[in-house]
């Protein structure tokens, strides 16, 4: 009955932990694997203009909720300028102002972005009126009308109409009409403006959208005009040159509309230069940055809210319960005996500082030397506490010596021994010497190797990359550890080594 209660408690704990993990993984995008990385784009706009000497103002369009992207971070670098940002339904603007400015002025806007896997919201704003049919200049008008009636007969709705129109305009073998229309040069701003005019001829509302093609290591990027048409429900984007519908994954929508990108008052017209770079960032930091931008409460109460230094401490501390679980298993399932209950966990923590092989070598060496000295101290008949203090002193001197020698031998590993928890070592030596004296060398060796094995297994578990990632990113998984511990707490079966211990009884009973 008690056992079933514990099982239910354990089950509830596991369910809570798993649902929390599911939520954080699915909704916040925290990755389940440590190596998962995503591309992060850094886009920097450099704005330059010449100021006249009086008050200067610069108005610059910046992206507002670019479809398909999550903004992780943004920076305005503008020395002595005052900064304000404004946004309307379509665009966002940065407004820089300064009382006095003379000569060359440089302002920066920098943002970090990553792809958003989820579907982006439809762009519905604003609902346009149907444009009037413009009066085209002849002979261009005749060419446009011919093209429009041709396209109309080959299309079903606004999107197919636009696509058909674009494919005819971009055909490799243009006829006379199209050559006339394309005089402005395909892809140029004038050409796209003209395209809007042409679409108005079919009473299709269209607008210009400036996008930034994202490419790694671009130094002088420029915005490219795209076109959006309204299909009575939402704005549908088209690459005017390829005719493809929708924003590609590698284009960043900078702004909508055809006003000048930058407006400078109190100076000469400005120039804008874009530079783009890409780097990989772990999804954890992306999720963390994003959650900070969106003010997610859950992230506020996560370990990521702590200062990095504290975070690093918790990366270690949170693994200790796992080490304890290993000890529970080794003792209650295997039957391994160790010095003290959780001493091996502490030794394993010490190994973290040194790497495993070096840790084991140094640990064994220090214990052996320490033990020899401790047995000598026994001859001096010292009281327990002074003797412990003496062992501690000797251990510290040995560690210092170890570091000095390893530097002389160019072994960098030896240096990290300085962080080796000295007290643990001193206590191990002390306990080992008592066992050695009381129960003989066999028992001391048994306990010593038992502790070392437990420490090695504990180390391997506690430094496991994936486990470390899971526990730190999803600390609620410690509830699972707790649940397993509870279940093991009711295990009344044999320990593995007991099968060996009682083997004589089986042999005897099986005798004919």
């Amino acid at each position: 009955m008690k056992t079933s209660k514990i099982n239910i408690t354990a089950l509830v704990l596991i369910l809570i932990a798993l649902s929390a993990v599911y939520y954080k993984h699915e909704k916040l995008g925290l990755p389940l694997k440590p190596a998962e990385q995503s591309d992060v784009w850094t886009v920097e706009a450099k704005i330059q203009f010449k100021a006249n000497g009086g008050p200067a103002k610069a108005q610059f369009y910046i992206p507002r909720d670019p479809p398909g992207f999550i903004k992780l971070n943004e920076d305005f670098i503008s020395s002595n300028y005052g900064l304000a940002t404004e946004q309307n339904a379509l665009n966002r603007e940065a407004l820089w102002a300064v009382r006095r400015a003379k000569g060359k002025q440089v302002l920066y806007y920098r943002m970090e972005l990553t792809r958003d896997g989820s579907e982006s919201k439809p762009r519905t704003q604003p609902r346009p009126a149907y444009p009037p049919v413009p009066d085209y200049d002849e002979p261009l008008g005749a060419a446009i009308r011919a093209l429009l009636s041709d396209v109309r007969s080959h299309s079903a709705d606004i999107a197919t109409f636009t696509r058909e129109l674009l494919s005819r305009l971009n055909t490799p073998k243009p006829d006379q009409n199209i050559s006339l229309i394309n005089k402005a040069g395909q892809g140029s701003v004038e050409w796209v403006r003209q395209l809007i005019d042409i679409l108005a001829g079919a009473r299709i509302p269209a607008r210009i959208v400036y996008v930034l093609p994202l490419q790694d290591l671009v130094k002088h990027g420029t915005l490219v005009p795209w076109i959006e048409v309204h299909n009575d429900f939402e704005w549908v984007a088209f690459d005017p040159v390829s005719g493809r519908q929708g924003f590609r994954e590698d284009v960043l929508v900078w702004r909508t509309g055809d006003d000048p990108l930058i407006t400078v008052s109190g100076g000469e017209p400005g120039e804008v230069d874009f530079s783009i770079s890409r780097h990989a960032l772990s999804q954890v930091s992306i999720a963390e940055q994003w959650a900070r931008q969106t003010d997610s409460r859950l992230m506020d109460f996560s370990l990521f809210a702590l200062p990095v230094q504290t975070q690093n401490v918790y990366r270690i501390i949170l693994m200790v319960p796992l080490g304890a679980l290993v000890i529970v298993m080794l003792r209650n399932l295997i039957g391994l005996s160790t010095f003290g209950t959780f001493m091996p966990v502490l030794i394993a923590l010490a190994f973290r500082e040194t790497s495993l092989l070096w840790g084991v070598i140094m640990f064994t060496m220090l214990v052996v030397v320490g033990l020899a000295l401790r047995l000598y101290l026994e001859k001096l008949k010292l009281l327990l506490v002074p003797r412990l203090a003496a062992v501690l002193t000797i251990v510290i001197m040995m560690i210092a010596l170890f570091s000095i020698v390893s530097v002389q031998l160019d072994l960098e590993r030896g240096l990290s021994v300085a962080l080796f928890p000295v007290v643990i070592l001193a206590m191990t030596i002390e306990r080992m010497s008592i066992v050695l004296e009381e129960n003989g060398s066999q028992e001391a060796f048994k306990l010593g190797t038992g502790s070392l094995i437990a420490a090695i297994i504990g180390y391997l578990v506690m430094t496991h990359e994936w486990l470390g990632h899971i526990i730190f990113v999803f600390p609620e998984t410690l509830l699972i550890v707790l649940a397993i511990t509870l279940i093991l707490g009711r295990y009344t079966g044999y320990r593995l080594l007991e099968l060996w211990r009682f083997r004589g009884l089986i042999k005897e009973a099986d005798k004919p």
Partner: protein
Amino acid sequence: MKMPWTRLRELGIVGMNQRNAEFIMPYNQRRYYPLVDNKIITKQRAIEKNIPVPQLYGHIELEHQAAHLPALLSQYTEFVIKPANGSGGNGIMVIAGKTASGHFRKSNDSVVHIDEIKHHVSNILSGMYSLGGETDTAIIEYRVKFDPCFENVSFKGVPDIRLIVFRGIPLFAMIRLPTRQSDGRANLHQGAVGVGIDLGTGLTHHGVMQSRPILEHPDTGFPLTGIQIPQWDRILEMAATCYELAPLGYLGVDLVMDRELGPMMLELNARPGLAIQIANQQGLEPILKYAQTLGTIPASAKRRVKVGKLIRQKFARESA
């Protein structure tokens, strides 16, 4: 081919986890542990219940009292120094006599200087052998002169009798015989021989050493089986009475046979080990499970001994 754990289950062998979860935790309340962990308290309570114990010569609680040690010890030629809260036979120093020059002599014939004894006492006081590492008291007591009935089957040291008393009913018994390997100590882990004792008759059967069956004592060569333990019913009654001085349902009772004073209770154990199953070639489980189902337990120790014998008869080993 059955798996070893299935076989052990069938044989009713209790493992460490089962012992802790099913017998120690439900039957032994922690608050009674000091009664058995502190040997001075155990001794006092035993005297109240008329259970013979080795006489307490004195105890040392504070470091400066160690100065009186030579005066105290000068009255005795044989004694035992041990920690009041020790466990597993650790920290016990046995002085077996004096040399001609007036120095003390240990049971293994090595000479000890008084300073060594003082050092040992201060080690005990500083908590080196106590369970929690807390400061302890050293006790000096009568050294048991062991009964010649075990002379042939022990190597130095004192053999002791271990009984498992469950709910006040003595149910299992074995005798632990020191060997050369165990350095005169009656500790099975250190290589002492464990011999099962038939609860009904007090006759020994089956010896084990380091988990292996053994017929003769490894050092003396005498047979281990068929030895009659003297005053067996008295021993059983004493063990059953121990339940009254420390109400622990699952209790280990250690007794020794003194040549002149007969059986004496040496110490009680709240976490008795499982080696007794090996010595008896029989599992504890069916017997303890049966004793769990008993409704009323007789109030008198004598009656409980009778119940214990009846239970063991009921679960007699098939091969015996």
